[in-house]
């Protein structure tokens, strides 16, 4: 099956839109997914990500727009003729069939010979490490095992597009991490185009080639994970991925230098290029980019604040610091780098470098 690497089919949304009655569930989406790409639809519940996925699957009919798989328009093609694979959050295995028969189902539908079915089912069972449980019924398996079976069932007919609807949502954290890696491995090995839905930002960032961030039925930003994390285009994007310190900042010109100034005259960082003096912007500062300064240390931007909250996460410690202006600032860093000793009520000097600050684009609204 390794020869299939790079055989994914591109997906193209052209103004795809969905209204239920008069209510818009999905504003027009135009998006091209590359062949073999791993694209994640990320967003809170009700953001329209599952609707978009179901449109690709053929389970929901779009109200307007076109959907293309490569050179073929599939907008009106019934689900069973699209040839995509889909993995569901609740596994959707057939309770009356054994693991083997569940995986054989799509092959039987395709009238593949008995001998070939046996070979191919064994092949995918091996791929997901479930060969020894072929005779079990789904209810005799754990959640993680059931999801492996459902992934195997989806891969057995070699779809060039695989859709996953929160496939790890029902699993505990450790298992989730393990299956994330396995899904990634299968994607790299088999080369299908993956469209993955999740509301878990860590999952989205660790797995995806690109993330399509959605909110309220709109696509907010489509970028690579690092770009989305470090260069969010909106405060929603900044706040949804990871933790964010967001400051309302004013662009100040002083002694030939332009910089962003927060409440209480706090210097946040350099002004973005091409911005007018006096204009107002939102500045983003990630908690892990703020350091606690030792007495002899200095930084490009500094502030003094009082620790109001300490949370210990093992390897990481998270401090909430109240600045003189009354604003709270969150710091996160490796425990032991001056962070663990800080107690509540303590006054700290903190700092960050200029490059740590990102000014979000001006909101058009």
């Amino acid at each position, binding site marked *: 099956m390794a020869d299939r690497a790079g055989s994914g089919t591109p997906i193209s949304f052209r103004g795809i839109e969905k209204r239920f009655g008069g209510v818009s569930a999905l504003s027009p989406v135009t998006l091209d997914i590359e062949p073999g790409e791993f694209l994640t639809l990320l967003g809170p519940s009700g953001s329209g990500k599952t609707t978009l996925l179901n449109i690709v*699957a*053929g*389970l929901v009919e779009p109200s307007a727009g076109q959907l293309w798989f490569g050179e073929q328009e599939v907008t009106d093609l019934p*689900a*069973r*003729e*699209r*040839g*995509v*694979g*889909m993995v*569901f959050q*609740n596994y*959707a*295995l*057939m*309770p*009356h069939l054994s693991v083997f028969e569940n995986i054989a*189902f*799509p092959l*039987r*539908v*395709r009238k593949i010979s008995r001998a070939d079915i046996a070979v191919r089912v064994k092949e995918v069972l091996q791929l997901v490490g479930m060969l020894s449980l072929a005779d079990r019924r789904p*209810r*005799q398996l754990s959640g993680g095992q059931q999801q492996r079976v*459902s992934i195997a*069932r*989806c891969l057995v*007919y070699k779809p060039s597009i695989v859709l996953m609807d929160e496939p790890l949502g029902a699993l505990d954290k450790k298992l989730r991490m393990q299956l994330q890696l396995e899904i990634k491995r299968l994607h790299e090995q088999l080369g299908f185009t993956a469209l993955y839905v999740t509301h878990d930002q860590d999952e989205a960032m660790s797995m995806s080639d690109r993330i399509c961030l959605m909110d309220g039925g709109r696509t907010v930003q489509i970028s690579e994970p690092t770009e989305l994390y470090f260069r969010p285009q909106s405060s929603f994007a900044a706040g949804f991925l990871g933790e964010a310190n967001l400051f309302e900042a004013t662009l100040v010109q002083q002694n030939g230098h332009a910089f962003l100034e927060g409440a209480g005259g706090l210097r946040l960082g350099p002004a973005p290029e091409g911005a007018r003096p006096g204009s107002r912007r939102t500045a983003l500062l990630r908690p892990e980019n703020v350091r606690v300064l030792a007495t002899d240390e200095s930084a490009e931007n500094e502030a003094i604040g009082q620790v109001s909250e300490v949370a210990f996460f093992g390897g990481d410690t998270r401090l909430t610091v109240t600045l003189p202006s009354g604003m709270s600032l969150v710091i996160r860093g490796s425990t032991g780098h001056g962070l663990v000793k800080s107690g509540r009520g303590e006054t700290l000097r903190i700092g960050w470098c200029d490059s740590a600050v990102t000014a979000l684009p001006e909101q058009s609204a």
Partner: protein
Amino acid sequence: MLLAREGGTGGLPGLAFVPRRYRPTAIAGLLTPGIAVMTVGFLTPLAIALWTSLHGAGGWSIDAYMALAGSTLFWRVMSGTFQIALLSSIAALLLGYPLALHMSQRSPKVRRVLMMLVLIPFWTSILVKSYAFIVLFGREGLLNQALRAWYFPFGPLDLMFNRTGVGIAMAHQVIPFVVFPLLTSMLQVDRNVYRAAEIMGASPYTIFWRVTLPLTLPGAAAAFLIAFTLGLGAYITPALLGGRRDLMIANLIDFRLRETLDWPAASAIAITLTGLVCALIALARRVSRPQH
């Protein structure tokens, strides 16, 4: 059984799932009224019937049963009863299954309306329904008049006062009892299973035969059993719509009770019928027990 199943997945003994507030004393308190009603209204009369059947003119005897065993009338009526019950419950199942399937696929709102429509005949008196059938299906009924108006060459059809009449009316009567267990089993199937099957390329036909039908078979078995047991005990419908030869067990009991005043015989028939039904239910439960 439900508790045992939950216990199986949770890894805890079944009874651990009974919340603390439902301790045995509380459970006993809740069960008492139901048990009392069943004792007074069912078990006691049954015991009396059993006693009567074994108590002839000269003290204890099994004469009544011996007489039954040798009675051709009894065996003819018994086999007729089983045939009619079987026919009407199969008919009800065949008619009720598509109906339940349709209801399971509608929105909850539409489903509620359809459920009401299924229940309306259920709330109507059997007498009224039986006369309605005569009006519709009798020799001069609406159906035959309509057929005559369309120059139907084989009319008029004899649909009433024979086995066909009893079958039609009984199937109609038990349809609600068939639809609801079926609907319950259909609604228990995860919708995503159907979606998955569709995405994997299965046609609606394949989905029905490979997924829907096997998954709803236990529900269908339960529905059939209910319809069949109800059919075995039918009384009014065969009396009103059956022919002279379509005497059912219940009518035979009535005949012995009121016409020949042979109470031991009537009781023996009743006990035999009850015993047969119990045996059937036990058998059906054994056959349809879920495999683990």
